[in-house]
């Protein structure tokens, strides 16, 4: 077993602006020649451009950059829901993506039912979820709300529930995409503590955030993305400083 958890080798991800998906069948048939031409010669957007890096096991990598710089695409590639256009992405270990608000939750189901649904979707067996149920509920601090449907929750409460499930999977790799922003200060603190705990247990983390202070605090290294290119990868202090100086507020 190597000590590398995530490897990006020369990864390029291109999104195609769909000739296929936009106009529907009627337009597709009416403008068949254009569409067929478009299939081979389609406009595309390069979300990541020849990005290479490695994340060691137990390391916490912070990813920063302006909107549209390719942060979420990077996480999608690690999670394995996207396929690179060129290059390879290797991952080693159980991955738990910390879902954005309410993703994978059903608003009509109770918090408890959603824990089961989400836990199994993220890779736990039913038995494992049931064993951890009490811990998850306790961590979420939702109290009696756990029996109520999610639709009555505040956004902070939904986030708590999502975080509570994700951290109880005992993942090898935890992906965090800008989710802590909605929690109150106290719960954010609790999450960060938990992430530091994870780090000391050797869990690998990839952490996307716009809160530069947070990034500096928990990352071992920080990657700075700009327009799909990896601009800098290095110590948190320097990289964050670089970002502040050159890109912030553009």
């Amino acid at each position: 077993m190597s000590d590398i958890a995530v490897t990006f080798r020369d990864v390029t991800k291109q999104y195609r602006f769909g000739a296929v998906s936009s106009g529907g069948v009627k337009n597709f048939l009416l403008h068949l020649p254009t569409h067929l031409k478009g299939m081979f010669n389609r406009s595309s957007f390069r979300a990541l451009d020849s990005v290479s890096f490695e994340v060691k096991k137990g390391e916490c990598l912070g990813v920063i950059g302006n909107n549209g710089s390719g942060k979420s695409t990077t996480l999608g590639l690690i999670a394995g829901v996207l396929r690179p256009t060129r290059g390879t992405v290797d991952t080693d270990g159980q991955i738990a993506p910390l879902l954005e608000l309410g993703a994978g939750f059903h608003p009509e189901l109770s918090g408890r039912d959603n824990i089961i649904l989400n836990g199994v979707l993220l890779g736990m067996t039913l038995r494992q979820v049931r064993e951890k149920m009490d811990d998850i509920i306790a961590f979420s601090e939702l109290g009696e709300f756990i029996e109520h449907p999610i639709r009555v929750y505040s956004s902070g409460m939904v986030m708590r529930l999502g975080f509570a499930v994700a951290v109880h999977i005992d993942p090898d790799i935890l992906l965090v995409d800008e989710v802590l922003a909605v929690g109150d200060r106290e719960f954010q603190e609790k999450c960060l503590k938990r992430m530091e705990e994870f780090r000391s247990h050797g869990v690998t983390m990839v952490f996307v955030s716009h809160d530069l202070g947070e990034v500096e605090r928990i990352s071992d290294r920080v990657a700075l993305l700009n327009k799909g290119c990896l601009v800098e990868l290095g110590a948190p202090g320097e990289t964050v400083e670089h970002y502040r100086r050159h890109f912030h507020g553009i």
Partner: protein
Amino acid sequence: MPLGCQATRQRGRCGPCLERRGPMRVESRKLLAYYGDLVRVLVAKEFKVRYKSTFLGYAWSILHPLAFAGVFFILFKIIVRLEMKHYALFLIAGLFPWQCFQNSVNASNNFFLGNNTLLKKVRFPRFFLVVAGVLNDLLHFVATIPIVLLFMLIYGKYPSLAWIVGIPALTIALFLFTYGMSLLVATTNLFFRDMERLTFLFTMLWFYMTPVLFPLEMIPERFRWMVYANPMAALIVSWRNLFLEGTFSPVLFATALGWGLVVCLVAQKLYSNLQWRFAELV
């Protein structure tokens, strides 16, 4: 150690399947058990969500198809005065399996699209969303079989031995064909959003082309071969023969099963070619 995604490797071009995983740390039996849990949880979700906060709750799974049957009964028996014995029983014996098919296929437009946030973030075999959706309708159908039995008893008919083979066999055939069609529609709808409208029109047309409301014998002799060309005709006639005559025709069953397998293969092929783009499309 949780199951699910383990070590993976993805390359450009040569295309990974979301199910095909690298060196697996857990043996496949555990993985199967996990997939079993996944299906259970997804079906339970559909079941709970469907009638959540309705007054009648699960009773709808029986009332809804019955109400439909009532409408057709009034139309054909009372207004059109169709000359048929046991028409109420005839109607529900064909209508219930048909509705299972039609509901699934129509709903399948949203099996992937409706779970967009999940597709974008979590890696799991996506076709389980379709499996769960179809199983949900199949369970609703199985729950209506006692109603058919009740109508049989009212008309003085009794279950036959053929049921022991017939019910499981036809349930499997119905599942396969419905699953295949649903997977096709669910996948295609991600690329052509028109699919939803087309599916509704198409299933309606298909309904009237299939001998659900009328017996096969009413179709002119020279079109009678369509029972082999239309897998739903083979299925509906089979279910009806089983309930009304207590007979099970292996030929019709083989027809339906064969069609089911073909559609499943085509759908699975399409799905595995396109699934890696799902997260980009939803």
